[in-house]
C-alpha cells in the first residue's frame, strides 16, 4: 500500500552543518508514527522541511501521492499536512476560539465582499465553522476556555489548543513537535489518550517526542534520526533493541550498552 507521507533522500545543509543527510521517512495511513533521536539529530529540521518552512537541498516529499516538497507553508496545509510547534506558537492575545477559527481558515470561503455583505450561505458557513471549532475545543478538552485569550491558559491547555487549531484544517496528517514537552505525568497520560483518540477518529499522526515511554507505548512505527541520518526504522520493540539506537542515545560503541 502506498504510504500517506513519503519523504525520500531529504538533504538540508546550514553552512557547514549537514542537518539532514538523505533521510527517508514513510508514514502509513492510520498510524501513529514516532520520530525520535538525540538532541540535534535533525527531527525539527525534518519537520520544517516537510511543512514548507525550510526548502530542502535534496529529496522529494509526497503526501497522498501529491508532491508537497518545495511548496510554501500555506500550500502544504492545503494539501493536508498540519503541524504544531515545539515552542507553542498560539496567537496569545486572541481568544482560544478564534485561534481555532484561524486554523480553519482554508475551509472558509468568505472574502472581502462576503465580510461586508454576507450572503445567507456564507452566514451558515461561518456559523458551521464556529460550531465545529467549539466542538473541536470540547474534543481536546478545553471547551470551557473558548472565550479566553489563548496566552492566559496553562501550558498543557495551550498545547491542546494548538492541536485543536491544527485539527481545524482537517488534515490527513497531523505533525506534532514534542507535544508532551513540559507536561507533568498526569498531563502526559491525558495527552496519550487524546492522541490515541485522534488516530482512532481517522487522522494519521507523526510525532516528535523525547518521552520514550510515551513513544513506545503509543506508536505503531518509529523512525530514529542521529546526526541527520536515519539510523533505524521499524516497530517500537525492534527499534528499542537496535544496537545503533542504543549507541546513539548513550553515546557508547554499538552493542556496548545495557538496556
Amino acid at each position, binding site marked *: 500500500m502506498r504510504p500517506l507521507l513519503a519523504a525520500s533522500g531529504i538533504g538540508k545543509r546550514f553552512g557547514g552543518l549537514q542537518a539532514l543527510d538523505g533521510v527517508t521517512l514513510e508514514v502509513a495511513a492510520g498510524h501513529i508514527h514516532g520520530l525520535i533521536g538525540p538532541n540535534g539529530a535533525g527531527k525539527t529540521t525534518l519537520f520544517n522541511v516537510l511543512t514548507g518552512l525550510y526548502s530542502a537541498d535534496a529529496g522529494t516529499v509526497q503526501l497522498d501521492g501529491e508532491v508537497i516538497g518545495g511548496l510554501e507553508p*500555506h500550500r502544504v496545509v492545503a494539501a493536508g499536512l498540519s503541524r504544531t510547534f515545539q515552542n507553542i506558537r*498560539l496567537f496569545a492575545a486572541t481568544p482560544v476560539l478564534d485561534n481555532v477559527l484561524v*486554523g480553519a*481558515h482554508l475551509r472558509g470561503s468568505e472574502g*472581502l465582499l462576503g465580510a461586508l455583505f454576507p450572503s445567507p450561505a456564507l452566514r451558515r458557513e461561518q456559523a458551521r465553522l464556529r460550531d465545529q471549532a467549539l466542538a473541536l475545543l470540547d474534543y481536546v478538552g478545553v471547551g470551557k476556555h473558548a472565550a479566553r485569550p489563548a496566552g492566559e491558559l496553562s501550558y498543557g491547555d495551550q498545547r491542546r489548543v494548538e492541536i485543536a*487549531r491544527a485539527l481545524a484544517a482537517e488534515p490527513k496528517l497531523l505533525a506534532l513537535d514534542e507535544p508532551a514537552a513540559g507536561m507533568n505525568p498526569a498531563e502526559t497520560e491525558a495527552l496519550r489518550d487524546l492522541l490515541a483518540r485522534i488516530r482512532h477518529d481517522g487522522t494519521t499522526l507523526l510525532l516528535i517526542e523525547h518521552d520514550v515511554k510515551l513513544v513506545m507505548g503509543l506508536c505503531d512505527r518509529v523512525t530514529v534520526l542521529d546526526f541527520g541520518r536515519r539510523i533505524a526504522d521499524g516497530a517500537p520493540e525492534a527499534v528499542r533493541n537496535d544496537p545503533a539506537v542504543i549507541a546513539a542515545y548513550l553515546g557508547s560503541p554499538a552493542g556496548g550498552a545495557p538496556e
Partner: protein
Amino acid sequence: MSARRLLLLLLAAVALAAIPWLVDGLLGVTWVRILSFAALYVVLALGLNITVGYAGLLDLGYIAFFAVGAYTYALLSSPQFGLHWPLWATLPLSAGAAGLFGLLLGTPLLRLRGDYLAIVTLGFGEITRIFINNLNSPVNITNGPQGVNQIDALRVGGVDFSQALHVGGFEVPAAYMPCLLFILLAALLAWACTRLQTSRIGRAWQAIRQDPLAAAACGIDLRRYKLLAFALGASAGGMAGGLFAGFQGFISPESFSLTESIMVLCMIVLGGMGHVPGVIVGALILATLPEALRALGPLQQALLGHVWVDPADLRMLVFGLALVAMMLVRPAGLWPRGAGR
C-alpha cells in the same frame, strides 16, 4: 434585519447628520470647517489602521497614498489638463490609483518586517512627495511646487457640496455640505472596518500580526493578506485625498510631508491601535487639538495681561507633553480594545 436594529440605525444616522448644526450652534461656523478636516483625518486614520493596526505592517509613508488620491482627483477635475470628470468617476479612481500604488509598494516589501518595513515606507513617502514636486518638467504633469489650482468642487448629480442645498423649505448651509459628506463616508468606512475586523480576513490579519510563521502554518497566504491590507489602507487614504482636493480647491506637495504621516500614525496610537472607536477618537482629538489650543493666546492675555508665549509654539509643546503623558499613563491608547476581544 430586525425593526429594532433598523430604528437604531436610523437614530445613529440622524445623530450623525445633526453634528454640523450642533457644532455650529455651540462653537461657531469655523468649527464646522475644522470638523470637516477632522472627518477626513478619521478616514485617513481608519485606513492606516487597517495596515498598521490590523495587519501589523508599520507604514510611515502612508500620506503618499493620500497624495496619490489627491493628485488623481485634481488632475482629472481642474484646468491643469482641462479635464472635468464627475465625482462618481474621480473618487473611485482616486481610491483605485492609491490602492494600486499600495500594491506596487507592498510587493517588494513583503519580506521586510518591523523596523525595516518602517524605514522603507518612510523613504517611499518622501520619494512620492519629491517626485510630485519635480514632475513639472520636462512634461508638466503636477505643476510642481505651485500645486494644482481651481480644482472642481465635490459635486454629485445636481448636488454641489460647496453650495447650500435646499430641500423643500429646508436649507442646509454651504459650510455643512462637505462636513456631512465626510461624516457619511467616515461612518461607512468605520462600519466596513468593524465588519472586516471580525471576519475571516480580520482573523487572518490578526494571526499575521502576532506570529506570521504560525499564521502560514494555519494555511494563511501571507503575501495575499499583507497585500490586501496594504491596498485597502491605501485606497482609504486615496479616497480621503480625493475629497481633500475637491474640498480645498487647490493642492500642493507641501501638504503631504512626513509630519502628516507621523500625525496620522499618532492618531491611531493615541486612540488605541486596531480598535475602530479608539482610532476615531484619536483622529478627532489630534485633528482638533491645534485649533482648540489657539485659545491659549487670549487666555494668556486675560490671565497674565500679556501674550508671553506664541500659541503656535505652545501648541507643539502641549502636543508633545500630551503624547509623552499618554505613553506613560495609557500605553495601549485612550480607548483600546477590551480584554477578551
